[in-house]
């Protein structure tokens, strides 16, 4: 099992105690695409942050590629984020004053064995826009840069937080298609958060989260190509 989440719990104490994750279990094989569906406040982002090594759990374990990251100290978590996990965000979070290629170099700069920037740009179809600033790109293009930035370190796990949340249908299809391509080309395991039930069709495995619990974990027998997704 590439990704294994067992009995994961997390609470926030803000005067009152709020249990955000309650004994969450989740498993994914290497090279799969997983989608986490759930309404606001269901704990999707918290779960993803813990898997990404950005937040800590109160209890339970998370294993990625055979390593229990919940036992990692801060330095090990930094190392984990540097080399093994990539992030794609809803609002891209590109650095506005760095050019496209430079935004990708932000990550390759600290990675031990990064892919070549030009190769990644070619993979996301933006070779001709490497010297543009993010402001000069469309939303879809910016998200492609964000994906290029995430995959340049050749991560084993790619975490995507509502990657199409700010895009229109056509552009979203392009981005999702690109993610499928990355999954196929680089063998990257992808875990994606979304509100959009339609996207679940392109995943190997779908987790429905509600009130901090995994309500359902379903395996798709048929994977729909992103180009055919409708909503």
């Amino acid at each position, binding site marked *: 099992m590439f990704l294994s989440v067992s009995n994961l719990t997390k609470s*926030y104490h803000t005067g009152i105690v*709020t249990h*955000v994750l309650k004994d969450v279990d989740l498993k994914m094989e290497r090279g799969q695409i997983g989608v986490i569906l759930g309404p*606001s*406040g269901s704990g999707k*982002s*918290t779960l993803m*942050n813990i898997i*990404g090594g*950005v*937040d*800590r759990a109160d209890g339970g374990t998370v294993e990625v590629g055979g390593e229990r990251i919940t036992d990692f100290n*801060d330095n090990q*978590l*930094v*190392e*984990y*984020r*540097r*080399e093994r996990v990539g*992030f794609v*965000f*809803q*609002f*891209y*979070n590109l*650095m*506005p*004053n*760095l050019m496209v*290629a*430079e935004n990708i*170099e*932000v*990550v*390759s*700069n*600290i990675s031990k064995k990064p892919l070549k920037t030009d190769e990644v740009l070619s993979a996301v179809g933006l070779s001709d826009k490497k*010297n543009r*600033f*993010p*402001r000069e790109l469309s*939303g879809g293009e*910016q998200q492609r840069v964000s994906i290029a930035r995430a995959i340049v370190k050749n991560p084993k796990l790619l975490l995507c*937080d509502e990657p199409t949340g*700010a895009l229109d249908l056509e552009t979203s299809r392009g981005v999702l298609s690109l993610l499928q391509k990355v999954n196929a080309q680089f063998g990257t395991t992808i875990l994606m958060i979304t509100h959009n039930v339609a996207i679940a069709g392109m995943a190997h495995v779908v987790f429905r989260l509600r009130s901090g619990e995994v309500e359902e974990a379903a395996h798709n027998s048929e994977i729909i190509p992103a180009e055919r997704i409708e909503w």
Partner: protein
Amino acid sequence: MVLRKRVWRMIKKNKGRYIGIVILILVGSLYFTAATGISTTLENMVVGFAEEYRQEDLTFSTDKPIQDIAALEEESGALIEAYRQYDVKLPNGELRLLSPGTKVNIPAVTSGRGLENPGDILLDPHFCQTQGLTIGGQIELNGKTFRIVGTMAVPNYVYIIKNLRDVLPTSGFGIGIVSGADLSAFPEASNEAVTVYGARFQDRKNIDAQTTKLHGLLSQKGYSLSEWLDSENNKRVSMPWGNISSMKSMSFPVATAFFLLSCLIVGVMIMRTVKSDGVVIGTLYAQGYRRRELTRHYMTIPVLLSAVGGLAGTLLALPCVRPVVNSMLASYILPDKGNTFSPLNLALAVLVPVALIGLSSFLAIRRILRKTAVDLMKGDEQKAKVNFIERALRLDRLQFNTKFRIREQVRSIPRLLFLVLGVSAASMILLFGFTYNYSMDVVMDKGSITRYQYPLEYNFKEIQNLQERAVPKGAEPYNALRCYPEGRESVEFYLVGMEPDSIGFKVNDMQGNALSRDQVNISSPLASRLKLTEGDTIRFVNKLDGKSYSLAIDGIVEAYGEQFVYMPFDEFNRMTGQPVGSYSTVLSSHEIDFDESLLSGVMDARNPEAYEDLNALTTLIVTSVTALAVLIAVIILFLVTSLMIDENRNTISLLKIFGYRGKEVTNLILNSSTPAVFVGFWLGLPFMLAFGNVLYGYVAEITNMLIPMTVNPLYVLISFALIFAVYEITKRLCGRKLAKISMSEALSELLGRSQYTPTNLKKSYHFFVPSINRQRKSMYNN
């Protein structure tokens, strides 16, 4: 208005930044209030004393007593006082007894009472202190006992030096006032007491012209003048005026520079605050708030900061004035009239920063508030715009870290300019402090005192003649006059006649080669001030009698701060109409036993360290200037660095998410300012030279004192090290702030509407909940 609550929250949120601004304003007001307070207090004491007690405009002695003083007063328009002085030797000092002036140089009783009875004496307070004497006690002078009834100050002995041309006070020397009858009662006084005249012109304008007229009248009446010194050149009178001038000349420019710097900083800060609040402002507009209500809201912070800084600086300055005035008064005898603060200056110290900073902030706020509510709500103001420099930069071949740092700096040109100019300003002040100090050292090391090959200089009261009084071996005579170039009375210099084989002075050209003494040589500072070179002609006027002369310049003497023209001895006497062999001064390699009554002063350059006391004020100025420069550097670097961190919170947070370690983030963000600090420092050097030349020129015009502006590379390196040390310390201080930025900041923005925010990995950290503008910013980035 409920918005007022935001003001305190905004201040609390960026308290470090605002404290820095308040300190900068405070320092400006403190400096201004203290400097003007000191100069006003001193001026009030010195000018008030001079006017009230009728300080002389000139002092002179004649070969025989003036017969009809009243007639001379009538003709010259001057009050002329003849007073007797008699020096009494004491076991551990010497006391000069003076008869009390009634028309000019009237003594002011500073403690005790005035002279009432025979045997009463008033003493100068320093003398009392050093001799351990008290009011009510007694002092025995040449067998006569006097009762000390009080202490006094005399206008023509504010700075007590024994001889008129002495540079330093003589240890143990003091003055006392006794009645004329008591002075005459000394049996030897009839032989040894001298009569000196003090003159004060009734018309307080054109003193120089009236002085020349009086000189002419005395000559006409057949009096030969053995002593003739105007108050400007009489150190007993002029010393405190120099302090007042230097305080005045430094107070306004330096304080104004502080205020303007504060305005720039606050203007930049407020503009950024308002810009980052653009969406909120747009929303408030949309809710019906008026422009003036919002202007008032955003003006509260700068007005509050400048008022607090200005008021605190002014209040803190009040107790600072007295110790400085006391330290100055330690060298002078003046009636202490207490501190004097001009209400106008006090008001200016508070109102100028409020007005200037208020105006700069108002302009910055209006610029943003001109936009429409829709534009503001779109978040246009916060959108990261790419400026023309960023667009033009092609950095493909550079390493990522270098690229990142360059882009980080050029992304905000105003911030970069602010950093470069701020560091330049701090460096300029620091370099100026060191250069001023070094220039004074150069004057001491290479100036007039070290010019003397013969260390002793005997000045005679009356012109001597070689035929009557030859000078011994190892000594040489010279004659001198005070002159000014035609049309520039503020530039005074000495015309010196020296023997062609003179060895008493070093007279080298700019390359260090000895110049002939048998020609006309001008000192380099004077040549530079008058823009003269070899072959030019200098036209000048004798200050004493108003006669004009001209001389062709043959050589330029390397000199530091000195203003003189050397010419051959005989030619000097011929040109000025004096008998062959006339001289006023003897330079000597050894002590000569001249009759002391003939001398007006002796300068001894054998121990140059003794003159260093004269530099006490300079040391005080340099120390305070250095401290100020370091403070400015700290504040500016801290403000810019903290601004940079605040503007990069999202980037920093994101870099941490990507796996950048703390040191790597620090290296990228904070070290990006290093080239700007470097450039800023080196820009400070030409700025300092320009500022220094203007200021030195200004001081020279006011005080006729030339200070050579000499930059010492060692001090430049020390300043460089100091600025970079401040930069490193600031980075460390700000590094903590940077370390506190958690990954959750970027995530909470990314997640946008997430109900929960992840905890910091190291510790729980309550961060600022992203405001509506942040969310809008992300949304409108599309």
